[in-house]
């Protein structure tokens, strides 16, 4: 079986800004294997958000190819992209993005609703996912009754629930204090050890240090792509 999960070849993303064309991503060649734990770094304006959108199938490239799990995403329409996001990708956001009126369980099961899973199975799997992030005793709490770290763990549970082939985390610790950030990063490390593929977008070096591959972007191009030395 091919171990490549993501393949990008001469991928570009342009934005029209008035008369100018802004090259947010300029000729990117990049691929990720399964079970990689990657940090994508770069200053603001480097194109890392655009890259995240494309990896997350929230956006499609202007030119070039993007393959996720053997499927070419470039020509897909909105609904096909929605289906791919639903099945292949688990998102974790900087601002958590839980729905405030729903309790943890209902927040976590949301992707399963869009996958057409029955209520009973949804309940079981959401409970499982919450237990995995250590919130089995908070299932009926609403986000407003939880701490920031707990909220982000609920969001991670939501990202896990569909058994995605890729977990995409956009500045997951950006709104958290240092010790909570450490807890969250521990969870990601555990998930990585359990065999998940994780891509982390961050601008914090110490957060990136948890990962094993660092990709630095600058002006829409890959500045460097290094692997962490294997520490024994």
């Amino acid at each position, binding site marked *: 079986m091919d171990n490549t999960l993501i393949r990008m070849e001469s991928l570009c993303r342009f934005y029209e800004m008035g008369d100018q064309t802004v090259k947010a991503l300029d000729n990117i060649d990049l691929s990720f294997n399964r079970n990689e734990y990657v940090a994508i770094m770069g200053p603001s304006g480097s194109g890392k958000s655009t890259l995240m959108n494309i990896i997350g199938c929230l*956006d499609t490239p202007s030119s070039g190819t993007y393959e996720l799990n053997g499927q070419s995403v470039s020509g897909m329409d909105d609904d096909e992209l*929605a289906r791919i996001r639903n099945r292949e990708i688990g998102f974790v956001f900087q601002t958590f*993005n839980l729905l405030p*009126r729903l309790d943890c369980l209902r927040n976590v099961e949301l992707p399963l609703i*869009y996958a057409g899973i029955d*209520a009973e199975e949804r309940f079981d799997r959401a409970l499982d996912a919450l237990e995995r992030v250590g919130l089995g005793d908070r299932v009926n709490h609403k986000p407003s009754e939880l701490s920031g770290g707990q909220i982000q763990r609920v969001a991670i549970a939501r990202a896990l629930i569909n058994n995605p082939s890729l977990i995409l985390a956009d500045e997951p610790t950006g709104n958290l204090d240092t010790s909570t950030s450490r807890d969250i990063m521990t969870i990601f490390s555990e998930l990585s050890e359990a065999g998940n593929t994780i891509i982390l977008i961050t601008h914090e070096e110490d957060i990136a240090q948890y990962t094993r591959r660092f990709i630095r972007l600058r002006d829409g191009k890959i500045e460097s792509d290094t692997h962490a030395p294997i520490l024994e």
Partner: protein
Amino acid sequence: MRRFWNETYESLLMAFDQIRGNKTRSFLTALGVIIGIVSITMMGTAINGIDAGFEKSLSMLGYDVIYVQKGSWGSMGQWWRFRNRPDLKTEYADQINRIIADNPESGLEIAVPQMSSYRASVSYKDRNLQQIFAFGTSADYLRTASGDLSEGRFFLPHESESGSMVCLIGDDIATGLFPNESAIGKDIKLKNRKFRVIGVFKKQGKFLGLFSFDNQIITPLNAFRKVFGNSGYVTIRIKTKEKIKVADAREEIRGIMRRLRRLPPGKTDDFSINEQQAFKSQLDPIKNGIAIAGIFITGMSLFVGAIGIMNITFVSVKERTKEIGLRKALGARRRTILMQFLIESLSICLLGGLTGLVIAISITAAIEKILPDFPIQFSLLLIVISLIVSVLTGIVSGLAPAISASRLDPADSLRYE
């Protein structure tokens, strides 16, 4: 399919959640629909009520009774057109009856004379009633009129012929003159002549809310003449046989009357043949007018309501841009988002519609309690129409915002603050 129902069910839950979370806004949104539905149902109820009251009144006139008179009911208020016609004579009744008897194929059963005065007054001891409708007729009157007696009897043929000074009175007169005792056997004064009460009619209610059958006094024709002379207004009441078409009966009566009046061909009728249909054609334009005004008012309020709902749904879409982005990121398709917002506006409209119905039914019940005589009727059809209208309003007003929500770009929406 299961996925569709799953999503629909979840959308429904979310919609109710949203409505509960924004009570004031939801109420204001629903207000347009509430007002629209209340006006639809009240209008429909009023029209139904007019119809029902009208039917009831017409049945008082009798579906099979035709009235030959000097003037026509179909052109009320144009009395001058008939002023120069010769008065009818009560004798026509006997002559018509003779003609009917000679013709075995006649569609007519019997003709009964009636001579009336609108402005009689009656009194008993110190009690006195004005503006009484008094008329004299024959013993056959009951065959051409509805109206049961609550007490006593009608006058007999020999009393009718001899002109006995007896009378029957309507319920209002009986209670007016004899509040605490039976009227039977008492002598009342009609235009200063004594009449003995031999019967009282049951309460019948008003005819079209204008004219009361409970406010009449009936005497034998010859007795009426002794009091009023020959000055009364003459009506010949003619009952048709069963299953005879009104138009055929009218033609026959017309022929007979022209014969009695000796009108040469080419000369127009100098009498009118009236029946309940004439009222119907008088009332239809009024009813249609109410209906058109009602549809207009209702349409306006629903239109305003729909715009309000559309506006608020657009605001709600804007406010929840980030939520929409998240839902799309998690795998919601366009159709799912569309359904969610459509179901939301539909639920608001349906709740508004139901609230409107409850209000309308309460108002109807209140009116019935306060004004028992007011013709009012609530129908199942109105409920069904109201609900359909609410749902349509919901779809029409929710569609545009829902489509715009479904087309939002997920990446942009997620970043929206």
